[in-house]
């Protein structure tokens, strides 16, 4: 009897150990797994966290600068759009910052918002400082991408949103998170909070942040070199992509080009790594061209639109749009961003300036404070070789590195979602 019981217990133990050591299961579409495929496809339903379909968050608008006059072509962006969901009773609040070029109601923040809301948090979702609406309505100088300036802008937005809703919502503690560039922003926002102490964030979670912003934008710009014929063939590439998708559409029996259709299209086309890299490059190129054009028009910097040319409400961007589409984030850095900030840091050369925009610049802070945690992937495509080691070295146990997932592809995976919540719950 005793023996049988022992055997049973051993068996149970073995099973539980086996269960805990199950390799991280992250399937993707297409014939083989790659970090590019993971980045593009994201989390498949079979391994995704079980979250309700409905988005609990409502959208709203807020004026950030009382006397701001926006240029004519951006008349609709005078106020900042954001979204929120409140619990009925007092609860901790999570601020979520979106990634490069992404909005408060983009898919990743919505999924994250669902997870935190259903775990009992109030949630507030904020667009990236690189998103057009933020650049126009909430950026002090509308030249985004500066780690410290962006942090100040985000911090101001957070304070304004809190002020607006303070009579309705009771908050016990504040948390901040963000993915990709938003994760990077979250680090500098938390650092700023140490001085300002307006929120006294209990914890920050950085999801797939870059280590060096410059390295990451270089990698992303290089991905558009995968466009057949080079990045200048942007338009032709989009054209051929559209043709490919069209062929699938014509054969399929659906009338809507929805998520389900895109899934099918992906399976049918089964793109290889070069094509996927080109696709990722194109998506970032759309972000960089939007940012560049917006920032240029607001500041009349003469980068793409000559400084004595004023765009009106009805102006067609025409050739300026074609030029903006040819420009990546590194072009912005060298021709606009660095020269713009240079007078503030005359002692720094380009490289030195780029280095101040590194997570490494906050290394001693990360080591001295245990409130910041990281969730990352070993195969993230926005990191240069070896950069991933920065996280375990500096954060120790506070860095959770998954073996797969590419860039933010696994954020909806049940293990990742459980981890995100546990970081803020403990």
């Amino acid at each position, binding site marked *: 009897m005793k023996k049988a019981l022992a055997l049973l217990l051993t068996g149970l133990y073995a099973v539980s150990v086996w269960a805990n050591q199950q390799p991280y299961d992250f399937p993707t579409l297409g014939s083989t797994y790659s970090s590019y495929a993971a980045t593009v496809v994201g989390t498949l339903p079979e391994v995704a966290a079980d979250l309700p379909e409905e988005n609990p968050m409502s959208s709203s608008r807020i004026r950030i600068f009382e006397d701001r006059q926006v240029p004519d072509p951006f008349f609709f962006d005078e106020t900042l759009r954001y979204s929120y969901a409140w619990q009925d009773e007092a609860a901790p609040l999570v601020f979520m910052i979106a990634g490069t070029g992404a909005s408060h109601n983009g898919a990743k923040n919505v999924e994250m918002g669902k997870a935190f809301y259903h775990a009992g948090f109030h949630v507030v979702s904020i667009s990236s400082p690189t998103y057009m609406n933020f650049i126009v309505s909430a950026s002090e100088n509308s030249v985004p991408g500066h780690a410290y300036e962006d942090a100040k802008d985000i911090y101001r937005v957070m304070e304004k949103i809190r002020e607006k809703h303070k009579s309705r919502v009771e908050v016990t503690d504040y948390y901040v998170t963000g993915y990709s560039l938003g994760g990077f922003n979250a680090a500098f926002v938390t650092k700023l909070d140490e001085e300002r102490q307006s929120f006294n964030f209990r914890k920050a979670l950085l999801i797939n942040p870059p280590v060096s912003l410059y390295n990451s934008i270089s990698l992303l710009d290089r991905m558009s070199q995968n466009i057949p014929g080079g990045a200048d063939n942007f338009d032709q590439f989009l054209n051929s992509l559209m043709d490919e998708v069209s062929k699938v559409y014509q054969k399929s029996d659906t009338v809507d080009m929805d998520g389900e259709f895109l899934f099918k299209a992906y399976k049918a086309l089964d793109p290889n790594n070069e094509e996927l890299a080109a696709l990722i490059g194109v998506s970032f190129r759309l972000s960089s061209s939007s940012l560049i054009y917006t920032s240029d028009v607001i500041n009349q910097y003469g980068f793409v639109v000559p400084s004595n040319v*004023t765009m009106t409400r009805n102006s067609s961007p025409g050739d300026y749009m074609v030029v903006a589409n040819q420009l990546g984030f590194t072009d912005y850095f060298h021709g606009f961003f660095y020269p713009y900030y240079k007078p503030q840091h005359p002692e720094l050369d380009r490289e030195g300036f780029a280095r101040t925009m590194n997570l490494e610049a906050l290394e001693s802070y990360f080591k001295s404070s245990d409130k910041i945690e990281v969730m990352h992937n070993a195969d993230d495509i926005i990191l240069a070789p070896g950069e991933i080691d920065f996280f375990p070295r500096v954060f120790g146990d506070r860095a959770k590195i998954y073996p797969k997932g590419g860039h933010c592809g696994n954020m909806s995976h049940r293990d990742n979602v459980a981890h995100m919540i546990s970081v803020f719950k403990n």
Partner: protein
Amino acid sequence: MSNNTNTLMRIFLVLVMGTFVSACSTNPRVDGDVADKAYYDAGKLVAKDGDYMVKDDYDPWEGFNRTMYRFNYHLDRYVLLPVVDGYQFITPDPVETGIHNFFNNIREIPTFFNSVFQLEFTKSYQTAGRFVTNTTVGLLGFLDAATYFGIPKHKEDFGQTLGYWGVGNGPYLVLPLFGPSSARDGIGLGVDTLMMSAVYNELDMKSEEELALMVMNGIDTRANTSFRYYETGSPFEYELVRELWLQKRKLDIEK
């Protein structure tokens, strides 16, 4: 973009809109005699004979279209979306789904006729099957029984019919309320609307009832369209929407 516009159609619309079009220039304002050179100079970087798909869409009425695009944004923000929000707030979800199914069922009528006009007999047959099934088993269309039984759904309108018979898009056209369209599809929309009106007349509907139905149809359509004006995050939204819309129509006609 194709230039084989139906000439009559073109003359008609130019007459109607000529006044608007000439009123709104799409050129930026230049201070001084000539534009300076930008850091990245468009004069050097844009090939004169280059193939730039988004820029090259046929849009001679751009000034009018941009004005109308803005008008639609305001209409959306101050009228339609508040109404849709109110509707969704007071209507329980299952009822909302039922109403959506009901209107989808009515929308099978133009699809049916247009499938016939395009000699697409499988589509006509299936669409008729869907309509009969949903009107009877689906309780006047409130339940989508046809989808449950696996009868494929199609969508055909008179713009597609014209396209099928070789009529080109004509100029891109942003319609008030309805949004992106083309000269051809604007006319198609008019024909489809007349067709529906004829159906309502057959049913001996009073004009108030017909109006109520049309308003509800509009609310339901807006409630089920996720697009929001000026929320793509792109300063080139007008161009992107135009491009995507033209591509999608091209596919719908070929399908």
